[in-house]
Structures are given as structure tokens and as C-alpha cells.
């Protein structure tokens, strides 16, 4: 089908999947912030999620599909664009583009690497077995103690560093991406362009700060 081969079609697929991923990081952020509400926040949240049973697996498969499409075309477009630009200029100048736009594939790959680590850390729980919820005592309400797993993890400066680097990459990625889709899906007009881009950058920074706050505030013991 043309959609999977065309220069615009593949961009549209990237924009739609990228947008779904932004939806995911929005919901995920709200869930994560429940750690600030203590064990009754995040442990209850985790229990509700697990109570969904097979739906969790449906959701995981959808996420896998989204990432597969987004990454496949992201890397493919990047390689084609490199091939289309074999020689660089002796004097190279950017007029309006941003560092974030120029590094999409790299920040994307950092996110991917982080994603694998993150799943091993909190989902499969094999990177730090001693502080994994599976190996910890249940909490007062007989729930898996996700709260202790998260807080203990983020008392480890190295783990916090990994998370912060990854969240900076995510912020850079959506700094461009969160407004780029408006253009890709053909919604921008000459007059809306600048405003949409500015709002996108602000929203990206807000996401970044919120995501980074979790490990950082726990490490600094500002939130316990």
C-alpha cells in the first residue's frame, strides 16, 4: 500500500503513532505521580492495573505495535534522508531548526534503550531483585509494594541518573514531536504555525519537569 512507502504516508504513520505514544506518556505520568501520594496512591494504582487481567496484555500488544511502526519508519526515514544528503557544506548553518529536531532519531533510540531497561527494572524486575516488589513483603493492605520498590530504586543515584538522562532525551524528542504532528497531519495554517510550535515546546518542558521530578525528589528525600 502506498501509505507504507510514500514520503508523506510514512510521516503520517509516524505522526499518528507518535501521538498515541504521547497519549501513553500522559496517562503513564499521571499514574507515576501517584507515588507522591504514598503507598496508598501507587500501590492501589498498580493493583487496579493488574486487575485488568488479559486487557493488560492487549494494551501491551498495542504498545508494541505502536513502537514497532514508529521506530521502523523513524529509522527508515532517517537512513533515506542521510543517503539523500551525501555531502555537507564547508560552512554549515541552521536558520530556524532546533537541536531537538536534528536529533530525533538519536533521542528516539535512547528512549528505546531506556524502555528496555525500564521494563527489566520495574516490570520483569530482574535488574535489582533485592528491592523488587515480587521479593518484598506485601504492604499493609496486602498489595504488592510498588511504592517501596520505586522509592528504594530512586535512592540509588546511578538509577536516578539513568532515568534523568532518559527523561531529558524524551523531553528533547517531544520538544519537536509534540507540535510536529500538527504539520504532518496537515492541520497547520500559516498563522497558527508559530503558536502551535511554541505551545508544543512549553508542553514538552512541562512533561520533562514532571517526569524528572519523580526520581529527583525521591533521591533528595524531599518526598518520602
Amino acid at each position, binding site marked *: 500500500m502506498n501509505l507504507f512507502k510514500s514520503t508523506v504516508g510514512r510521516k503520517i504513520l509516524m505522526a499518528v503513532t507518535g501521538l498515541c505514544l504521547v497519549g501513553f506518556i500522559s496517562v503513564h505520568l499521571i499514574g507515576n505521580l501517584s507515588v507522591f501520594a504514598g503507598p496508598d496512591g501507587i500501590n492501589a494504582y498498580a493493583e487496579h492495573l493488574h486487575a485488568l487481567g488479559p486487557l493488560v496484555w492487549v494494551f501491551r500488544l498495542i504498545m508494541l505495535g505502536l513502537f514497532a511502526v514508529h521506530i521502523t519508519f523513524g529509522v527508515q526515514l532517517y537512513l533515506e534522508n542521510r*543517503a539523500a544528503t551525501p555531502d555537507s557544506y564547508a560552512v554549515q548553518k541552521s536558520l530556524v531548526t532546533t537541536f531537538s529536531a536534528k536529533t530525533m532519531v538519536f533521542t528516539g533510540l535512547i528512549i528505546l534503550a531506556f524502555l528496555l531497561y525500564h521494563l527489566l527494572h520495574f516490570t520483569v524486575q530482574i535488574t535489582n531483585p533485592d528491592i523488587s516488589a515480587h521479593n518484598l513483603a506485601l504492604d499493609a493492605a496486602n498489595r504488592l509494594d510498588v511504592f517501596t520498590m520505586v522509592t528504594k530504586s530512586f535512592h540509588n543515584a546511578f538509577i536516578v541518573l539513568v532515568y534523568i538522562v532518559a527523561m531529558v532525551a524524551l523531553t528533547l524528542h517531544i520538544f519537536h514531536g509534540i507540535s510536529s504532528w500538527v504539520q504532518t497531519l496537515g492541520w497547520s495554517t500559516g498563522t497558527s504555525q508559530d503558536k502551535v510550535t511554541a505551545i508544543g515546546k512549553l508542553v514538552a518542558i512541562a512533561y520533562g519537569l514532571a517526569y524528572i521530578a519523580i526520581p529527583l525528589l525521591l533521591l533528595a528525600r524531599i518526598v518520602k
Partner: protein
Amino acid sequence: MDLTLHVWRQKGPQDKGKLETYPAKGISSDMSFLEMLDEVNDGLIKSGQEPIAFDHDCREGICGMCSQVINGRPHGKQEGTTVCQLHMRQYNDGDEIFIEPWRAKAFPVQKDLIVDRTSLDVIMQAGGYVSCHTGGVDDANALLIPKPTADYAMDAAECIGCGACIAACPNSSAMLFTSAKVAQLAALPQGKPEARKRVLAMTQAILDEGFGNCTNHYECEAACPKGISVKFIAKLNREYLKTMMPTSTGA
């Protein structure tokens, strides 16, 4: 004023090419950039050297032939200006100026600063036209077109096909050039019958000719001597999306 030029010299398509340094002495600030190069070439010819080959034709900013990246900016530092309309008053005595050809796989260098832009013609041939019957000419204004639509199409039609957008694009994407024509014709009643076919054919030609994919850097708009807006790329994307919708006639 006296300047130092670093100019890309390449004997032919197969040659590797390299930057050569030339002094440009006694340049008047009233000269255009191309006249400055004419002077330098005069000197090169008199001293038995090969003059610098560069493209140019109208020298009034309408043909799109002049194609030089000057200090990293296609068409030089003055916004909304082609190289031929750039004047030496923009420069100061003692300036160093790097002059390079458009760089993209789809624009092979022929000689020095001259690149082959046939690839743009191929994109145009793929769909940058409207089919019409010959014969009696329609009455002028028989077909009503709202003024804002006419203005919109006219803004898009300002593209002179110079290729600066591709030269400026980190991906060597030809989206701004292509979108200008797609948007111009899609906005007008004469262009609507072939709108679907056009956007599919022209975007396919982009890839076939070895251009890259647009990733919304907007360098093209900033470099365009005619101020073509990236809103036309959004319009092209809309036109592409429309090809996925069923038509009211069921086709």
C-alpha cells in the same frame, strides 16, 4: 572593498572537487554578487586560469537559475533575495566568503557551482500541470474564483524552482518546492480534477529522484527567496490524506 573568496571548484561530475581561495580586490558595494564574480572571473581569464562556472540567467530574481550557498546560506544572507539580487553592500571590506554549490544527491554537481536540477523538472512533469482541451478560449472571469483563493494560489505560484529549499534542508527534501505546486493547483477549480493523481505522482517522484523526506525543520521556508510558506506543505499533507478518503462519486 577587498574580499577573500573560498570557492568550490570541480572540473566535472566525476571530479572530487575542492575549495580554492581567490582574492577579490577593489569590489564596488554597488555590484551585485554575480557581478562581483564576473569581475573575479575577468581576472582569472586574464591570468590564463579557468573562470568559475556558475548558473545564472535573468539576473532579476525570477528565473531561479542562480544557485550558490554563500557562507552556509542558500542565496546568501539577505532574506527573500536570490543571489543575483544580492548586493555587495551587504558585505564589508576584509570579509571571507565561502561559495558552494547546492548539495543534495538529487543535484549532482556538473562543474564548480553548477548543479543539475533536472530532478525538479521530473517532479513537475509528474503532476505539476492541469490538463485542458485546446480550442476556443474561455471568457475571462467566466469561472469565478474567490479573491482569497486566487491570492493563496498566487502566493504558492511565486516559487521560481531555484532549489534553495532543498539546499537548505538537512534531509535534502523537496517538499516545499513540490507543495507549492500541489497547493497552487489544488486550490483552484482548474486543478481539482487531477488533485488526487497529482499529489500521489509528485510525492512519488520526490523519492524516485533521490530527495529525502520532510521532517518539519522549516529550514526551507527560511531560505526561500520567494517566501514560500511551509503552510503549503501542510496543504500537501492534507491533499495526500484526502486520497485515502472515498470520493463522493464513489471512485
